[in-house]
């Protein structure tokens, strides 16, 4: 995430209610505040986390530790999706587009309906594509006005192919106008 950012959810400026908690901080430090944790922690401490009574989010890392690692597999979230109301996809570099597939799998195959957030190195020119893949929350650099976000999302009036942002019926999803 940019160190300073403002949040846009569903196209509107939104309050940031979440905090990212890194794995080095003990779990008992968890407050009742909505908290975003790693997949590693979610898997390791699922039982304890289930007992907790506050909103939980998870961030999916794209790079993993080693250079050759692909990063975390979105399918691993399946057993825990009922526990989380936010999934953040990390884009470690704008060139790394693995998260676009993860987003569509979450929306179209895993029936995830909660907040789906892009965090990391995301350019103006990518927001519209991300939105089409089902991402609905963006961490915008503090100096990026909401207007440019809206402009970016409106640059194309239609799409050739169905994706996660519209009617999934082929007859309407095929070559359709978006607005």
């Amino acid at each position, binding site marked *: 995430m940019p160190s300073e950012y403002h949040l846009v959810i569903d196209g509107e400026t939104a309050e940031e209610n979440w905090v990212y908690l890194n794995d080095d901080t003990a779990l008992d430090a968890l407050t009742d505040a909505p908290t975003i944790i790693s997949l590693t922690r979610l898997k390791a401490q699922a039982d304890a986390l289930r007992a907790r009574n506050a909103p939980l989010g998870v961030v999916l890392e794209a790079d993993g530790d080693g*250079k*050759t*690692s*692909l990063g975390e*597999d979105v399918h691993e979230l399946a057993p825990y999706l009922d526990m989380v109301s936010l999934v953040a996809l990390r884009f470690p570099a*704008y*060139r*790394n*587009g*693995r998260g*676009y*597939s*993860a987003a*569509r*799998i979450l929306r*179209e*195959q895993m029936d995830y309906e909660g907040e789906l957030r892009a965090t990391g190195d995301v*350019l103006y*020119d*990518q927001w*519209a*594509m*991300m939105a*089409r*893949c089902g991402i609905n929350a963006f961490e915008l650099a503090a100096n990026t006005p909401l207007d440019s976000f809206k402009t970016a999302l409106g*640059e*194309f*009036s*239609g*799409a*050739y*192919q*169905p*994706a996660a*942002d519209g009617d*999934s*019926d*082929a*007859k309407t*999803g*095929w*070559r359709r*106008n978006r607005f």
Partner: protein
Amino acid sequence: MYRYDEFDHKLVAERVNQFRGQVERRVSGELTEDQFKPLRLMNGVYLQLHAYMLRVAIPYGTLRSEQMRMLAHIARKYDRGYGHFTTRQNIQYNWPALDQIPDLLDELARVEMHAIQTSGNCIRNVTSDQYAGAVDGEVEDPRIISEIIRQWSTFHPEFTYLPRKFKIAVTGHAQDRAAIKLHDIGIVVKQNDAGEVGYEVHVGGGQGRTPFVAKKMNDFVHKAKLLAYLEAVMRVYNMLGRRDNSYKARIKILVHETGEEEMRRMVEEEFAKIDASEMLTVPQEEIDRISAYFAPPAYESLPADSDAFTAAQDTDADFARFVRANVVAHKQPGYGIINISLKPIGGVPGDATDAQMDVIAELAERYSFDEVRVTHEQNLVLPHVKLDDVKAVYDALAAHDLATANLGLISDQIACPGLDYCNLANARSIPLAQEISERFADLDRQYDIGELKIKISGCINACGHHHVGHIGILGVDKKGTEFYQISLGGSADENAAIGAITGRAFTEEDVVDAIETVVTTYTDLRQGDERFIDTYNRVGMEPFKERLYAE
């Protein structure tokens, strides 16, 4: 031919506007070169050795004369009076100014053309058979599904930042002229036992530093489900393709490292999910709508033979040679397919001047139902010419240095731009192609040698397809000196094969002699009417090696 409707026009116009904004942000400094790079690449703009280069898409290599005229106009107005046709059936301009590119794209859009996804790590321009719709024996015109794929892959939100570039080729004919097995995905249109048209899908072919022939992933994908299948392949690749090393990032490496069986299993699993959603099942109305654009032109009913055509060959030996090398049988009686070689002796393979492009546009309009094709071997085609008219077309071509009668012969070489333009190259390709073509300039000798495909790359990225040349030449750099490695036995057709390296590389001074040695070894050894590749496949590498490296 496909024509844009309002929907296509609007999206292309919006893309030009978007890119205009991106160029402005780059010029103002809001975007760094690093941030601008993927954006300009996705609009076909490369930064070359000396200048920006723009690559314009020619979907499946099909052009109307109006479009060819626009390409000529662009060469005149924004470039230095020429363009370069590429192995992906596109055209490149080597000298446009960055700040003029949005205007150039505006002009292109007026004739339904663009530079979208001609580079960058996305799905590139779909390529196909240059004889599509004209040659006998096709299951179906491959441009129908190519256009459907073009639309599906344009601005695909999920597959715009792939691990690496992604190329798809389609053939509708058993004779593969589109090199489909050397593509990330190669598609063969075929018919199943029930008589339904569908697609055989090959995955993981490619050249570059680790060449592979594609593996057959699926024997028959139903027509309406091809996009679902392609999306499954793409998704598996986007999720699992390597991003840590650009040389290992193509899908060929994923297929190789994962294994064909496991890859097939993963693709089928993903395909089942996408198919079940029916999201990407192409509606029959859409297939019908696109198919209608590729209905055959209004041919005249003609006798199979033309007296005028035969008589002209009897009286004009040069014309007879041209017919023998460059004119191919058409499926419609009384018509022929004319190949226009962009490989004049001593010329730059694939280059055409603005005046030449205008002439070809004129001929297409007058004699070939308004159509021109670009081939992956960097030549052009007038696909539907009456045999009665072939002589008139030939005369007009000859007047503009466009009647070189060398199709498929030793001087019809593929060469990448090489060190003269490209900042990746180790060695020059164009001057070498020119030297070889001059060495073998004698057409009678070329006919005697017969079909022989020389392909030259200036570096290991293999843009000149050297791996699949009957004779391949690869430029390598050794301590600042250009050397050339020779390989033999490659093939890009339905019997696709990767060539084998002969041995140590040759200096710039020696390489043309070495090619001559390879050729004379072949002519000494050939039996009957064996082509070079047949002789090589029969005798193997050894006899060539012996002659090449004899002390």
